[in-house]
């Protein structure tokens, strides 16, 4: 076993062998995937091969080429036969962007947000309300001929959804400015619930959201007259949005704003003394994080062709947080890997496992295995937190080093209670 491990590590670090190995691995798994589009194992292998490519010591152009091959050729080709695969990938891209967005708030800025799904809901509802026959319920007679909005409005609605979500972020940010830790978490949790309750109850006096029934028949986007209503088109929109999100996050992290967030997360007092306006940067973190969720909410709405309050429950918020923490708080690669892992686990592995068990083991019908998915998922998280607290690909948070810093300070000087000391 360790022999294989050493050989693998050696190969991945060798700049001559690594590209050949990575290329061969991707080619092999891709072939398997294309030949067996319904095989879950094939998809898992493709994902693992992409992780290996990520670790291989080769130029980024090789990596990019392989990633393009898999995402633009292999998956779409396999997806032609197995639509569920493409659908899974759309959800995966949405989750990647959501995890990246929440990572901004929790990982970069250090603000625990348990209601993040609210912003996703905001984006989803804003477009659904006007991009479906729901608009006829509440728009004045004279304007009704404009609705439901045409498909090209989807693109115009992206900045609007971003704006609305950012505004929701502001309304969450303002009341929680003075809160920290547990208190912040509780209020954000409450905020998530408020948005869900609003969605559920805004069917009267004016029917804005159609309440618990949700909104159906959402206009799919269109481009140059073509209707983009296939899962494959959502797949491509998803990939573009996820990549744009990742790129924006990468740049933000290395910008003046990103540094200010990191400083605020590390030490609020020192950050203030360095000229950082905490109020402004906390609000900006909530708003920026929310904005990304808003855009993805729109994609979610058209992908499902249906929105209802059930899609935006507290559990969904926790699910995204789990991706961020599982992947490694504060790390972009971590958020991506966490989102992929959780999506695949929930939508593929646990489902297959449940199917497999219900076929092989004769269980009473009351014992509904899919219902135990959250339990299994929770167990995995617990094990993870025990054995690898910092996540799969941890961000830069040398907590142990910070602990050392405390002890290195001369005893006389540690008057922890004084504000600025």
């Amino acid at each position, binding site marked *: 076993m360790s022999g294989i491990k050493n050989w693998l590590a050696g190969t991945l670090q060798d700049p001559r062998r690594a590209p050949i190995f990575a290329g061969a691995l991707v080619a092999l798994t891709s072939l398997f995937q294309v030949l067996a589009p319904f095989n879950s194992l094939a998809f898992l292998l493709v994902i693992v091969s992409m992780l290996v490519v990520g670790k291989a010591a080769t130029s980024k152009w090789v990596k990019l080429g392989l990633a393009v091959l898999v995402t633009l050729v292999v998956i779409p080709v396999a997806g032609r036969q197995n639509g569920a695969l493409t659908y899974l990938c759309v959800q995966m891209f949405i989750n990647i962007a959501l995890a990246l967005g929440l990572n901004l708030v929790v990982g970069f800025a250090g603000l625990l947000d348990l209601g993040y799904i609210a912003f996703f809901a905001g984006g989803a509802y804003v477009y659904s309300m006007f991009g479906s026959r729901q608009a006829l319920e509440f728009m004045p007679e004279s304007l009704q001929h404009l609705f439901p909005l045409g498909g090209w409005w989807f693109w115009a609605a992206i900045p609007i959804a971003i704006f609305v979500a950012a505004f929701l972020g502001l309304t969450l940010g303002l009341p929680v400015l003075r809160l920290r830790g547990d208190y912040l978490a509780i209020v954000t949790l409450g905020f998530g619930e408020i948005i869900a309750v609003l969605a559920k109850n805004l069917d009267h006096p004016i029917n804005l959201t159609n309440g618990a029934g949700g909104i159906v028949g959402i206009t799919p986007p269109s481009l140059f007259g073509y209707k983009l209503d296939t899962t494959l088109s959502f797949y491509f929109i998803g990939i573009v949005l996820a990549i744009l999100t990742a790129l*924006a996050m990468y*740049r*933000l992290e*290395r*910008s*003046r*704003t*990103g*540094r*200010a967030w*990191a*400083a605020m997360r*590390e*030490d609020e*007092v*020192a*950050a*203030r*003394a*360095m*000229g*950082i*306006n*905490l109020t402004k940067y906390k609000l*900006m973190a909530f708003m*920026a994080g929310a904005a990304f969720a808003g855009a993805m909410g729109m994609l979610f709405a058209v992908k499902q062709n249906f929105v209802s309050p059930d899609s935006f429950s507290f559990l969904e918020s926790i699910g995204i947080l789990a991706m961020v923490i599982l992947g490694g708080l504060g790390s972009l690669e971590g958020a991506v890997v966490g989102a992929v892992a959780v999506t695949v686990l929930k939508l593929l592995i646990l489902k297959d496992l449940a199917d497999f068990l219900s076929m092989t083991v004769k269980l009473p019908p009351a014992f509904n295995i899919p219902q135990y998915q959250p339990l299994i998922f929770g167990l995995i998280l617990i094990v993870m937190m025990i054995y690898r607290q910092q996540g799969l690909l941890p961000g*830069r*948070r*040398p907590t142990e*080093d*910070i602990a*050392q*810093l405390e002890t*290195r*300070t*001369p005893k*006389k*000087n*540690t*008057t*922890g209670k*004084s*504000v*600025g*000391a």
Partner: protein
Amino acid sequence: MSAPDRAQGGSHVHSLLRVQGLTRRFGGLTAVADVELAVEAGQIFGLIGPNGAGKTTCFNLITGLLPPSAGAVEFGGRSIVGLAPHRVTALGMARTFQNIRLFGAMTARENVLVGAHARLRAGVFGGIFRTPAVRREEAAARERAVRLLDLVGLGDAADLPAAGLPYGRQRRLEIARALATEPRLLCLDEPAAGMNESESRELMDLIRRIREQGMTVLLIEHDMHVVMNLCDRVAVLNFGQKIAEGSPAEIQANPAVIEAYLGRDDSAAD
């Protein structure tokens, strides 16, 4: 010693920093009681006193981290009481912390770049779209950060996480970070604490160089050797009250100071 003439005067209208009747109570304890200070531009001004005398609290009041219970603080001729700390920093006041407060997970370079925050403009959109103006600004800031790290002797540590640096280097990184805010007044809270003799000699050189670049320094220090060699003027606090002020020589000869402070233990720096 090397003190320029302009640095010798007492308080007059054009003091860079002017503190009057500064008072701060914590419950029943008056940590700072009716303190007057006038720091002239170009001075190295020492603030000394036994443990718990209220020196750090003074810094917190001056830099806006704590609101005073009473009193006035004027910086560059304008009142800064009630101003948020980041505004005070933007006006040109920077500080270091007695218990080092670096951003531990960030590199030395990033720590200094955070210090430059108030002098940079880029916002969220600038950060995402990286406009040419933002790129230029960022490149200039990075160049300046390297120069500041070189100045404090940390040129080789730019990409190391701050938390992993040895103690003396962390203290100097705090100074570089404070300098990055481009201050007119630099407030140093026990910069020599925990340093050995050669390190504290280097530190004194550094502080002199900082003054030569036109900055004013307000210095809390326990190491009498540092205070006496460096400062143009020294104020002494005891139980929150200013008990003496004058040249280092005057302070050394002042019986009240010897009683309160030097008398107990000449090194006092423990």
